């Protein structure tokens, strides 16, 4: 039977080995630092309420499912999004419920793609790179309600 100091020593040896074999990649540390710039103070957060990848039966997900459905909820607003993959590119088709006009900023890696919803609250964006994405919905000019921003999610 070994005592606690032996355990601590062995764990420390493993820690040093892991730090040499599998260090956090520098570019990811930089991405973590850069993430701070994306924070929004004034917007309401729409949380992820449904993800067909995570919430459906795993057996269904294993199939060659091309479309992924996401749903985000804020107070009084639901954002339904369909994600389609074509190789490394992603296509987003979304709709605001209830339908309303809004400016949509698709925040994605280092860039922002801006589109607008139509009268039915629909929007679309093509050729997005795979990776984390978040959408910010600004109200149409003249409307008093705050902007809504979705949680980040990898697509």
């Amino acid at each position, binding site marked *: 039977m070994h005592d606690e100091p032996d355990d601590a020593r*062995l764990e420390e040896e493993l820690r040093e*080995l892991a730090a040499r074999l599998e260090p*956090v990649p520098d570019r*990811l540390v930089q991405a973590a*630092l850069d993430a701070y710039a994306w924070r929004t103070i004034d917007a309401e957060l729409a949380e992820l309420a449904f993800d067909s990848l995570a919430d459906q039966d*795993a057996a269904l997900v294993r199939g060659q499912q091309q479309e992924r459905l996401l749903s985000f909820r804020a107070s009084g607003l639901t954002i339904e999004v369909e994600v389609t993959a074509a190789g490394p590119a992603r296509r987003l088709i979304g709709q605001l419920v209830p339908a309303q006009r809004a400016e949509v900023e698709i925040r994605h890696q280092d860039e922002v793609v801006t589109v607008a919803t139509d009268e039915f609250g629909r929007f679309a964006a093509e050729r997005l790179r795979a990776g*984390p994405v978040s959408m910010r919905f600004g109200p149409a000019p003249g409307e008093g309600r705050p902007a809504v921003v979705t*949680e980040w999610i*990898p697509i």
Partner: protein
Amino acid sequence: MPTDPEWSRRAGDLVAAAARGDDAAWKALVEQFSGLIWSVTRAYRLGSADAADVFQVTWLRLAEHIGRLDHPEHVGAWLATTARREALRASRASARVFLTDDDAVFDAQDAGGETPEQAVLRSERADQLWRAFLTLPARCQLLLRLLMATPAPSYTEVAAALGRPVGSIGPTRARCLRLLREKLA
């Protein structure tokens, strides 16, 4: 391992400062917890693209929630929980589901092992230690990979990364380290 109260107070202060716009506090959080989040991606055996996504999304989520955390002092556990959920989501997305407690399933996946950098393993002790580690039951590898994060995480954070009660960490750690020592003997 740091003592939990001291660790939590410092983490809570950093979150409060970062929420007020203090860049240096955010940087300190990144330095403190990147190792833990990375260890979650290693523990759940994600490929490099999925690991990068999980790591980035976890930090982006914190940036989004920085002023809205119910318990800023438990930010480490919050990050570990977020990283675990995203790791499981990524596993599902890649049809590599790890939602199992069945060691046999994990052990079957262990068979291939990994090909760590030769340079590090040129040291006989390092090579021996890593080989022995890779023959441990999957449950032990999962726990030890989290404990192996730099800087050393608290048991509360490790428990959050596993989705298990904090009381289970100490006994499992002792059992796994004993097993590792036996393999090295």
